[in-house]
């Protein structure tokens, strides 16, 4: 998907949308996003698939600042997705027609989705996890 990332260094779009975490060079612990200190943290690609750990729905527009989404607010789902062998990441949830479909443990996969438009009319992209659609 074309657009500008909400921030540098937290995901890449190609060849596949991928979150970039950080691995503690000493302990091996993986976190997201990758902290700035390169002596301690090594950037690492996170698994693209995981399971929904928990979720909620943001039903009112968060205060701005810091929220930078569009003025016209639509409730959005968010939660945590467990990426096996790596870490549990907080994320928007996409590809859900009905919030009642969300279930802890469901299979999710990473996507990039438009989050807002900048002054030049370009899409700003954010990462999101969506239910895996088999077949």
């Amino acid at each position, binding site marked *: 998907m074309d657009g500008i990332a909400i921030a540098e260094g937290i995901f890449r779009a190609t060849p596949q949308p991928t979150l970039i*975490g950080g691995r503690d060079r000493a302990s091996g612990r993986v*976190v997201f*996003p990758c902290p700035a200190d390169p002596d301690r943290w090594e950037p690492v690609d996170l698994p693209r698939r995981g399971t929904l750990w928990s*979720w*909620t729905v943001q*039903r009112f527009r968060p205060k701005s*600042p810091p*929220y930078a989404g569009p003025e016209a607010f639509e409730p959005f789902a968010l939660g945590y997705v467990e990426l096996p062998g790596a870490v*549990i990441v907080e994320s928007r949830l996409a590809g859900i027609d009905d919030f009642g479909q969300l279930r802890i443990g469901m299979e999710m996969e990473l996507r990039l989705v438009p989050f807002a438009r900048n002054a030049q009319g370009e899409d700003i992209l954010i990462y999101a996890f969506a239910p895996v659609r088999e077949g």
Partner: protein
Amino acid sequence: MQDVFIIGIGIHPFGRTDALSGLQQGAYATRQALADAGLDWRDMQFGFGGSDAAGNADSIVNELGLTGLPFINVKNGCATGGSALIGAWQAIASGQYDVGVAIGFDKHPRGAFNALPAEYGLPDWYGEAGFMVTTQFFAIKLQRYMALHGITPATLGRVAEKSFRNAVHADHAWRRSPVDLDTILNSQMISDPLTKYMFCSPAEGGVALILASAKKARELGRDRVRIRSAVVRTRPPGSFEVFAPCIDIERGGAPTLLASKAAFEMAGIGPEDIDLAQLQDTESGAEIMHMAENGFCKDGEQEEWLANGWTTIDGRLPVNTDGGCIACGEPIGASGLRQVYENALQLRGLGGGRQVPGDPRTAYSHVYGAPGISGVTILER
């Protein structure tokens, strides 16, 4: 370590008081606490105090008198009041002073708390994306807890119903009208599974406690309510806290587990010895989860507890006897001391229409907040 007693308590009603600054509400509470103790401001040998959003507590000398006392400002998020109390308690327990004051006050704008990422060491995009909202954390933690331990929405509703019912009898509470269970369950969904009436709101208010050594308390004839323990803990590895872009797969403890354990050890008693408790109820699910984290029941037993009314005023363990944060609102700097105020009042038998029956002797209070801190105190009569 010397014994320390709470010899005076004061509170400015919580809610909205447009005419007074947060600091002035703190001064109001302090005057009330001094009157309760039968002392004057110039008798105070020291002070600890703080607010989260209403300025420096040491400015209170301009309101109360320029006596030259040492006054230490505390800014410790939701544990501000609890930390001020610990400071004051240590100052007396160490033998350095005989009498002093702990003060907490606050005044927040309407609506949800408006935290900025940089204040928590987080990147700007985290706030821009809409993750910097405390209600999300409580809802997400609760959603998982309910799925794992079989807690139903009706139980969440019963917590809020109890809070509003208790607050009818608390002069200092903000929301003092009963709200029935159906209204709570069917009110606007804020952050699933939590509805509007299940959340507390940012508010205003002030609380002050006068502390004294055993010798001083006896001299004044006010040696009734003793501090058995007062602790604050930060989070351990693998915990799940407010404003977390990620959490470890290997799950760990929680700051409340650490604070509760330390407080019980310090007091030399256990959860079964507690007669009433004030537990952090940012929303009704927090009260449910904190019942277990503080050791009062096992995970999942809350269904039975709430269905049977075991946390009501005349239940086996009355919880949030003044309506807690849900009915009082949450002025961050004052909220933890409100709990201790309520406990001291209950142990003195002055709870009026919300007095816990049976002559309670022990009372427990617990605060929790960002970025993963917890404070516990245990009082004994």
